[in-house]
């Protein structure tokens, strides 16, 4: 858009064209606060650096709705939230303070249980029942896909448990990494096999 500007107009508006990062940050924070106060900040998000790379965290007014690894694509995750939850999405770290702090503690071996409100609306039906069961698998413990299928009420739905884990919208906080193959191998993971291994090693230490 600026590229199409005629040279004279470009020169004319030169004092206005510089990116003003400070003002942008200030205005963005002000908008997030005003939107939250008006009850129209449907999805707040932020990114956080962890030993497993940069995570995207997103929360509705109900609770944490999405945790996405960089390998899953943060833009894709935000686009999905815009489509399935609401297009009123802002980078607004305040709402994510609690889960951010608890993730820091978790990676520092100072937390074993996440105590934050969750919004599991992105997961439906049987997948949702699987996530509910995953929350009951304790820190440092693993279960097989078959065990989870039984616990979630459909013993033959082993593959569906795999899908529920693969599509877990809130990995780490809902510990799908604690579900492994019956032969003891790790199995797949939303954040990649290395991330799963790292989490299981972290919890075993």
């Amino acid at each position, binding site marked *: *858009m*600026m590229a*199409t*500007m*005629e040279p*004279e*107009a470009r*020169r*004319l*508006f*030169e*004092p*206005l*064209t*510089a*990116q*003003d990062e*400070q*003002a*942008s940050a*200030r*205005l*963005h924070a*002000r*908008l997030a606060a*005003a*939107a939250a106060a*008006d009850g*129209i900040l449907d999805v707040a998000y932020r990114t956080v650096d962890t030993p497993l790379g940069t995570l995207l965290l997103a929360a509705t007014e109900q609770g944490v709705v999405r945790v996405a690894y960089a390998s899953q694509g943060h833009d894709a995750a935000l686009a999905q939230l815009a489509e399935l939850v*609401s*297009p*009123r999405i*802002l*980078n607004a770290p305040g709402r994510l303070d609690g889960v951010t702090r608890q993730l820091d503690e978790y990676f520092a071996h100072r937390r074993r249980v996440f105590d934050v409100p969750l919004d599991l609306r992105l997961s439906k039906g049987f997948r949702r029942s699987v996530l509910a069961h995953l929350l009951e698998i304790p820190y440092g413990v693993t279960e097989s896909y078959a065990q989870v299928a039984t616990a979630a009420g459909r013993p033959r739905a082993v593959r569906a448990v795999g899908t529920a884990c693969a599509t877990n919208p809130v990995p780490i906080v809902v510990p799908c990494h604690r579900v492994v193959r019956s032969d003891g191998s790790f199995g797949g993971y939303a954040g990649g096999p290395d991330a799963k291994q790292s989490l299981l090693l972290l919890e075993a230490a």
Partner: protein
Amino acid sequence: MADFGPMVLRVCRAVVGPDEAEDAWSETFLAALKAYPELDEGANVEAWLVTIAHRKAIDATRAAARRPLAVGSLPERPARTGRPEDWDGDLWAALAALPPKQRAAVAYHHLAGLPYAQIAAITGGSTDAARRAAADGIRTLRVTYLARTREREGR
């Protein structure tokens, strides 16, 4: 939508001036956020944001007319950053001296990149009138601002 934040800020600074620009920007985006779910898919988000900013600018201008004018000291030399604290007082003075339709047409075309037909839909009037308003505005700015700047820089 956040991608258009800097563009809308430039437009607000040009249309309502550095002091009111941040209020106008905030009101524009809050209103946009409220209305966003009703926006048609495939709508031109830039034009839509400028339309909202245009209405907010009219509101701000009306409100300013009811307030005593605050006159700040103008900087000695034009700054190149665009920040209100060192915003080029001469450029804003030159923009402020334009008739509102010319100022809007200049900002919406040259800063927001909107075509004249879209600008006409926002400000009222015909496409040709919008094109003329922008051309007249630029012609005036050439005299009131660019010439002075060149003079000062010894060009």
